[in-house]
């Protein structure tokens, strides 16, 4: 065990863990965050996604000691009590079914819009490809991303 310093959602934390511990378990079990969840532990499904340095990172395969820079989780997207446009779009489109994977959908979409504010449909599909959902909410998730990106195209209108 050793002391690891983490900057998460604007606050600094020190945790006493094995440095090889995947970031996911520190976020969930030491910091009591609920956005990132365990899905596969293999970096295949995106359910555990957080944003570090602007990139969507799979926290289930990221050793906590390797984290340098600010970590943003789903909880950190809202600012001053106001939801992020993606979160608002998610509610507007009613994008979730069970919702377990939606952290991965939203955080992957956040990283996409941060680097490409107006993605084409093809770019959305490509960027979101690794974000799995077993309720199959993809169609509404894509609509929500278009909505958040400023397009108000109804589902299916996009190319």
């Amino acid at each position, binding site marked *: 065990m050793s002391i690891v310093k983490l900057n998460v959602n604007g606050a600094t934390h020190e945790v006493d863990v094995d440095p090889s511990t995947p970031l996911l378990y520190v976020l969930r079990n030491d910091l009591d965050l609920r956005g990132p969840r365990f899905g*596969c532990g293999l970096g295949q499904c995106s359910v555990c996604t957080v944003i570090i340095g602007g990139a969507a990172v799979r926290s289930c395969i990221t050793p906590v000691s390797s984290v340098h820079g600010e970590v943003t989780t789903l909880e950190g997207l809202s600012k001053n009590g106001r939801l992020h446009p993606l979160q608002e779009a998610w509610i507007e489109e009613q994008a979730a079914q069970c919702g*377990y994977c939606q952290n991965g959908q939203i955080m992957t979409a956040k990283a996409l819009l941060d680097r490409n504010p107006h993605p084409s449909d093809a770019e959305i599909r490509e960027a979101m*490809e690794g974000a799995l959902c077993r*309720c199959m909410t993809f*169609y509404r998730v894509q609509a929500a991303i278009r909505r958040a990106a400023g397009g108000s195209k109804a589902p299916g209108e996009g190319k």
Partner: protein
Amino acid sequence: MSNPLQLPPELEAALAGLTRTSRRGFLVGSGALAITLSLSAASGAKALAQAPVASAGPYPDPDFLQLDTWIVIHPDNTATFYVGKTDGGQGTGTAFRQMMCDELDIAYDKTRLVMGCTDITPDQGGSGGSTSVERDGRPMRRVAAEARRVLLELGGQHLATPVEMLAVANATIFVKSNPDRTVTYAELIGGKRFNIALTGSRVDLTTGKAAVKPVGDLRVVGRSHKRYDIPPKVDGSLRWAVDMKLPRMVHARNVRPPFAGATLQGIDETSVRDVPGFIRVISRGNYVAVICEREEQAIRAARQLKTQWQRPAAAPFPASSELFDYMRRATPTSTSEPLVEGDPDAAFKAAKHVIEAEFAVPFQGHSSIGPAHALADPSDGQMTIYTNDMKAYSHRTGVAKFLGMPREKVRVIYMDGPQVYGRTAADDAGFEAAFLAKELGRPVRMQWMRDEEAGWDTKGPAHVFKLRGALDEQGKPVALEYDACAADYNHLWYNEPDTVLIAQLMGLRPAQPAKGSTEAPTSMYAIANRRTTRRIVGLPLIWETPLRTGNLRDPNGPQVTFAFESFIDELAAAAKADPIQFRLDMLEQAKEDAVFRKSRSLAVVRAAAKAYGWDTRPSPNPRAAASRDKVLTGRGVAYTYRNNTIVAVIAEVEVNRETGRVWAKRLVCAHDCGLVINPECLHHTVECGMLHGLSRALWEEVQFDTEKVTSVNWASYPSLRHSDTPEAIDIVLVNGDPNPGRPDLAPYGAGECSHKPLIAAVANAVYDATGVRLRQAPFRSERVLAALRAQSI
């Protein structure tokens, strides 16, 4: 109010509201309940919502024949509804609130809903079979109507006015002739008990004296209220079952047999003693788990633990590549009595044209995105399980039996979780957590790993079908033989204390393995001469096997409908008839039934064709077959029903003849589930049900060698992805009642029906595009490419 259990906000708010009420004084004054109140927030709430009863433990069954069990009116003129259901993400919780609000005459945003807590909410069985709204919404409406009736009576006394002269709006009763004279529900009963007995021999028959409103008077039902559970799901604030934590909680992980049917020979505990936080290995029979202080420690210890296993004497199952051959040859464990209509033998003999075909669907998994999990708290001689199990009530009963505890000492608190489309491994994980917690005397959180979820969750049964059909000289179908064979012997039911995985691994066995089942196709087609036969086969190993079958979203419907609706398409092609016209002709000849399935089927199939813009012609598309384009396009239809809900789906696909990739570019669904409670929730459920079916059509296949499942992660068990998503999905809700004599339109289930016809619709569209008939699912690129090459397409 402090909330040591960290319950989800809805439940927490409901409990806080309850304990602030004056009802607390009433109940504390009732003696024994004062003790219960001190136990915890949740058991306190139970005491508040229910009449006191003698019980063998702290968790007696809520009495569904007491109005107070279902509805509490608070002093702030809001209400909490208590229902014995769960919501797997289809928005049924929102629908329940809408239905109850309408009957109670209270605004939607002035209500809360508590679901699936076995000591608080009446036992409605949890979820399953698309029955939530259709069956279990009825008592909810009736008890809310009864509450309104009782409140009107109280209001009449309060206002010294006959009830007929009163009306209600937004939980406020007023005198029709003088709307300034009002009394609110809260003023009448806020914080007090109704003390009204209900009647009904079963929970779904529960009723008071009041009648529910006619459909025409419903104002909240029929509106697209946003789901209340989505905002806390997208901002990360909701506490799910997977997030539950308790003081002194520890983490467990399972160590599964490396080969199916293996016998544990030994455990070398020294192999994990150096793992930081290691607490114990707990093992009984072939069940092994490790427990550590921290989650990542438990994961490490489970991987590191050295165990020795002996392989079974005989191979537990054939490899997946040999599965269908095995099933064709296997001696059935049971055979259903053939269903015969007309004289099929004579009809086949006299027919102008006879065709036959075989179809196959492999095992497909739940493969939940969130591996199975639960937290069990064994404190004070009771057991509380926090789980997303959709059948909280049988979970409670099953765990109590398994642990040898009185039911009244066991409760299950349902919380949100990953998808629950039937008998998932959530059942198994709850039993494991409870067993380990009892052994250890500390709260234990269990979660399965990905390979465990994919490898050991329950599977939808593999099927092989043989169909034979005959056409007369006019190309009309005159005879049909349908034979279904399902690898479904020892099909698991829900939460059985002798069939959950831990029980099997410990060596427990029920007296008889379950027979298993498959189905006859559901359609209204008039075909005069029919023979339907069904048989079940078993794999060599039926216990402690990862190829356990259990209900998976309309348990056999997608498989059966794939075979049947593909074959109907083959008959249409043989008759050189348009696939939709061919179906309509058979539907026109059908007899009407009590729920108007004939008229509704015709309306649904026509609506799908209209919404798609279907041009009438036979399949395959002659232009597509003649072209040398890289991408061929086709359309295919499939129609079916599940119980009272009717569906027709049209898929438009692109088939890449160079890669074999199939993309469903557009899906159109016409859907009739009677009265619609929430159109947007319904749209989304229908849409996601279709895409789940599309995933099973294109990707899903459990693969195994002769000793273990080999499709154990998202690379080896691929599932639908963003790139597979259709460009357009159009849903038409064809909801109407063709019976003018019926006073009311009932809502029917919608959780599964749109899932059912997808494999068939895609296969039929691929045929239309290419002239190649795909008879084995899933339609992965390599299989499609091989089929195209085989026919030189």
